[in-house]
């Protein structure tokens, strides 16, 4: 079992790499105006506040993520983790503060579509897939391509693209469900499908909101491996409540703890777990 999975991962990496380098080829015209990451930082959040009718879901939040970093974000329910992702992906406009993708792309000025073009992909907390489309079509739609009207109308699936979809299917173990409408999948299967869609998008920054919720321990482990593989080439931000999983992917990397809309603590997993405040509000005694 193990070797084959490794092979799949390799294939996927290869596909992703190819896309990274070959920015001239078929998608030349979508190429985002190049993310400037000279300072080694892919995402800056600076003093972000989001308030809903007076309630501050995010409160002067500042955070940055380095290129190739895998950042875990944890925090109590309602701390503002999902809201933060909403701000990054343009779903929610911050009341104040700035959000930059690299040095040069001001996310607060862009719409959801443009942000996705710029290279940020997201997996939602609740699996959201196109329920009436087959698994294959879901992946096909997500696949990196020129997503404007005319090219979409005349799009033909190339062999490479078909292969990329194929290997993703393999990876998310939905090969035998290719033509099932995604709405009929079980909860866990939808989670995987959404991860697959995210991978097909080939974003530079991946935002994963509770990727392993509802997965079995074994699958959780597999997801961890996958994320570890992606680390380095892509930047990732992962939100999870499963501490074992967080520990397994964070390694020596940074973990950020949010609380009431701002950063409560930051550090390695071990440091954070030992922090009294974190134990108080989040981990419990």
């Amino acid at each position: 079992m193990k070797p084959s999975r490794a092979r799949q991962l390799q294939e996927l990496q290869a596909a992703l790499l190819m896309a990274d380098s070959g920015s001239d080829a078929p998608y030349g015209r979508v190429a985002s105006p190049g993310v400037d990451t000279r300072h080694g930082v892919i995402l800056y959040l600076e003093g972000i506040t989001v308030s809903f009718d007076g309630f501050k879901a995010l409160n002067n939040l500042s955070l940055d993520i380095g290129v190739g970093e895998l950042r875990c974000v944890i925090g109590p329910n309602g701390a503002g983790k999902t809201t933060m992702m909403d701000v990054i992906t343009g779903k929610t406009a911050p009341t104040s503060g700035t959000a930059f993708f690299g040095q040069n792309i001001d996310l607060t000025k862009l719409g959801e579509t443009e942000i996705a073009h710029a290279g940020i992909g997201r997996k939602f907390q609740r699996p959201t897939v196109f329920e009436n489309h087959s698994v294959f079509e879901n992946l096909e739609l997500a696949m990196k391509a020129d997503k404007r009207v005319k090219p979409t109308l005349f799009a033909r699936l190339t062999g490479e693209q078909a292969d990329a979809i194929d290997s993703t299917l393999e990876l998310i173990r939905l090969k035998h469900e290719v033509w099932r409408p995604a709405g009929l999948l079980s909860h866990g299967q939808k989670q995987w499908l959404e991860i697959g869609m995210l991978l097909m998008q080939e974003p530079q920054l991946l935002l994963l909101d509770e990727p392993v919720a509802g997965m079995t321990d074994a699958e959780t482990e597999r997801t961890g491996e996958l994320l570890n593989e992606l680390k380095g080439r892509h930047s990732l931000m992962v939100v999870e409540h499963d501490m074992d999983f967080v520990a397994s992917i964070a390694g020596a990397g940074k973990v950020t703890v949010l609380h009431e809309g701002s950063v409560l603590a930051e550090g390695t997993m071990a440091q954070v777990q030992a922090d009294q405040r974190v134990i108080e509000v989040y981990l419990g005694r």
Partner: protein
Amino acid sequence: MSAPYTPAAPGRLQPGQRLFSPKAWAGLLAAVAVLALLPLLNLALPPGHPLHVSSYTVALLGKFMCYAMAALALDLVWGYAGILSLGHGVFFALGGYAHGMYLMRAIGRDGVYQSHLPDFMVFLDWKEYPWYWAFTDHFLYAMLLVVLVPGALAFIFGYFAFRSRIKGVYFSIITQAMTFAAMLLFFRNDTGFGGNNGFTDFKRILGFDITAPDTRAALYWTTLAALAAALVAARAVTQSKLGRVLTALRDSESRLRFIGYDPLGFKLFVWTLSAVMCGIAGALYVPQVGIINPGEMSTETSIEMVIWVATGGRGTLIGPIVGAGAVNGLKTWFTSVLPEFWLYALGLIFVLTTLFLPQGIVGLLRQLASRRYARKTP
């Protein structure tokens, strides 16, 4: 309003695959051939002949095909992109009016007042054509208007509506407001389109007598060709990746944004395409029925179009064509045989269709076919 709607048969086609299956192609061509033959049977055979097709039937079918094309156009936006328009009548009528302007000018001085102006203008003491009638005496220009006017209205309306992310019933209702406003506007005599009488009493088209049997046949064939072309075009659009984007749009628009599609462009494309198709249908309709007036913009007319689509089977392309034919055929038949009770029959049919044929007539046929198929291959 995202109804949990599943296409009658899951799209088994590999993306990028052929347009129709060979069987479907054969069926389609056969249908076109049979329909194309009818005017010949009308022209060539004497009325007494058993195979003779009356000119009434031909005229009727010509009209139905225009309706079918409008229904097809509506299905494109409603069935696929989930945009329910309760105002498609306005595009139909605008196409009709655009062509009607040409037909009115083609009357020349044969009108009641023997003026170069249409009768209603003479009557209003207008000495000149208003500016928007300019060049409408050129057939090609009028045809351009047929495409441009509904297209432009749809584009502008759609642009603002979709940009503001107006969806679901809100969109439906404002399309209704649009067609209602247009109807009131066209009702006014001062608008310059003949008030509620509209345009009628056409004499000729491109120099041919509009009531001559062979002109009628030619119009019929044009309509048939347009309908077939529209069907193929619509099929091509829905089978493309864009078609899948549209259905995704219908089910979860916001999700689509997060993977990098801008819904505005897609909606606008299909909406405008549909309006243009509808306008062409209207343009073909006018010379065949001999009148265009604001009644076509009434909210009832637009709702009826929706009903054709629903009855035939939404999201199937062929369904709306069948539905338009079936509903109008029944209406024609009932209004003659049951003049006082036909509304009961029609109403009942609508109710029963929704209850027992949720996927419309085509859905039922598909279900029957798959059952037969299942029986054959246990």
